[in-house]
């Protein structure tokens, strides 16, 4: 009844509504796709983490996360990600700075950035194989050290297929990622700032300490966080390299997925997956905060 008193006549309203509907129809395929292949899987994990095998709500899965072996896996995952993030960030920042001092469209910079793109994204099984060929038991470097220098790198046990090996291989793909994400920030540093420091009588050390480092700090920290979540999410390298046991969370999820019938607790994997999402989400939230600060100066 009330609608009749609206100033717009009914046909015009219908036409407006029709147009609006038609405009929305343009994005329906995208949202349908996202709903099926992104939202539903996320909900499956989030809801499954709180359900038992019969679908009844329970907190048992979450409390199993407190079991010793799962806590250990989370601890090792966090430690591995933090260590390789810091190592990768420092070495990657050095390499990125070396590239910034080169000509921006020179061959060196192009070669290194493309190589970094491949090594950071491609990773996985290939890198595991590369390191087995390098420092595996009959690897290139292993044999060279043994035959030419008389050094047995495995005198203290074979460490490549365990945590120390993971640290080495993860650092190998963290450095290139750091170069990719940190390079834009370094490009944002203007030479004028250095000239201004110099003309005010500042030394190189003062320039770095008082101008460049405070400007780059948020970008550096943000990139380190990104590296952390990258290492924390990585699965393929570890799956191809680690032969025995499941030292880190992604491998624990694999064994929960592949042996769920034996365990009789098919939702434990979902609870671990939810734990991973929470960790990554917190890290990415901090990253977004730092990113906002970075863009103030180095956009």
């Amino acid at each position, binding site marked *: 009844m009330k609608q009749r008193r609206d100033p717009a006549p009914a046909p015009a309203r219908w036409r407006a509504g029709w147009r609006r509907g038609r*405009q929305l129809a*343009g*994005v329906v*395929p*995208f949202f349908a*796709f*996202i709903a*099926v*292949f*992104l939202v*539903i*899987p*996320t*909900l499956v*994990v989030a809801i*499954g983490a709180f359900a038992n095998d019969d679908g009844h709500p329970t907190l048992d899965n979450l409390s199993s996360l407190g079991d010793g072996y799962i806590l250990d896996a989370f601890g090792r995952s966090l430690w591995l990600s933090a260590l390789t993030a810091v190592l990768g960030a420092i*070495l990657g920042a*050095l*390499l990125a*700075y*070396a*590239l910034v*001092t*080169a000509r921006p469209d020179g061959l*060196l910079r*192009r070669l290194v*950035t*493309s*190589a970094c*793109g*491949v*090594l950071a*994204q*491609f*990773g*996985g099984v*290939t890198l595991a*194989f*590369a390191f087995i*060929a*390098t420092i595996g038991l009959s690897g*290139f*470097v292993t044999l060279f050290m043994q035959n030419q220098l008389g050094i047995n790198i495995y005198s203290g046990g074979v460490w490549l297929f365990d945590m120390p090996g993971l640290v080495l291989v993860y650092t*190998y793909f963290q*450095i290139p990622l750091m170069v990719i994400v940190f390079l834009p920030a370094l490009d944002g540093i203007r030479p004028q700032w250095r000239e201004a420091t110099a003309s005010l009588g500042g030394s190189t050390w003062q320039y770095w300490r008082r101008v460049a480092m405070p400007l780059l700090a948020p970008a550096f920290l943000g990139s380190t966080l990104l590296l952390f*979540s990258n290492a*924390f*999410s990585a*699965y393929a390298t570890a*799956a*191809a390299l680690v032969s025995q046991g499941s030292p880190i969370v992604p491998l624990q*999820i694999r064994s929960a*997925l592949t042996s769920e019938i034996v365990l009789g607790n098919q939702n434990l*994997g*979902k609870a671990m*997956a*939810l734990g*991973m999402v929470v960790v*990554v989400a917190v890290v*990415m939230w901090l990253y977004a905060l730092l990113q906002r600060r970075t863009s103030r100066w180095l956009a």
Partner: protein
Amino acid sequence: MAGLIARRARRQATFRWIVVVVLGIFFLLPLVAMLMFTIREPGGQYTFDTWRQFFDWPQLANTYPELWEGMKSSGGLVLLTVALMLVMLVPTVVWTRLRLPWLRRVVEYLCLLPLTIPAIVLVVGLAPVYAWVTYFLGGSALTLTFAYTVLVLPYAYRAIDAGLSGIDVRTLSEAARSLGASWGTVMWRVVLPNIRSAVLSAAFLTVALVLGEFTIASLLNRTNLQVAVNLLGKSSATMSVAVSLAALVLAFILLFALSFASRRRGQTTRGTS
């Protein structure tokens, strides 16, 4: 001042070469080791048999049927995923820019969401969804293209969004529409040619990501290149190392070519503005 700058430039060049050489050795050593692994025989002589076998494709298909199947499905997945990514993303992003600006934040958020969901987590949730996919479309490895499109969404979205920011989509499309073009023509003949390099960069990133993907394929029990290579690593290590090295080099060549395409575009925009 000039002397100071020259001295600094020299110091920077020294620093640059030290860092590049040291890290270059660290990065090249495993790749060289892979190459050596494929061409060295246990006795110590060198042979190119593995590579000869690798390039003889009919023979390869006979000797390693699993590997051949993996290569075929990865090739198919590359094409399908690039197509699906473009069909999903370009019209949606253009349309939200033009007609539904209030939806832009939502689309951006959804596209970047996969960054916070590790592939290993996605696969846990995808398992029941893929039970339905198998029911409707069969269990072919090519169905992985849906999951891969989700994986590349953040990277592809950033590339395409950056490309669209560089042109005035509204004016271009209004001009085309007022001259009587349909929306299809606007997309295909006006918008797409203008964001060519962004589309190219999104496509290349997709290719690299699909060629290297292992997690989802392996845990959904489908064979792609990396799964086959990993499996083959147990029986015929030389060939599997050769294949992964070849895939890595292919991805590098693609990205290196891309660096020229995008750089050229950057220069032209600087030149005109």
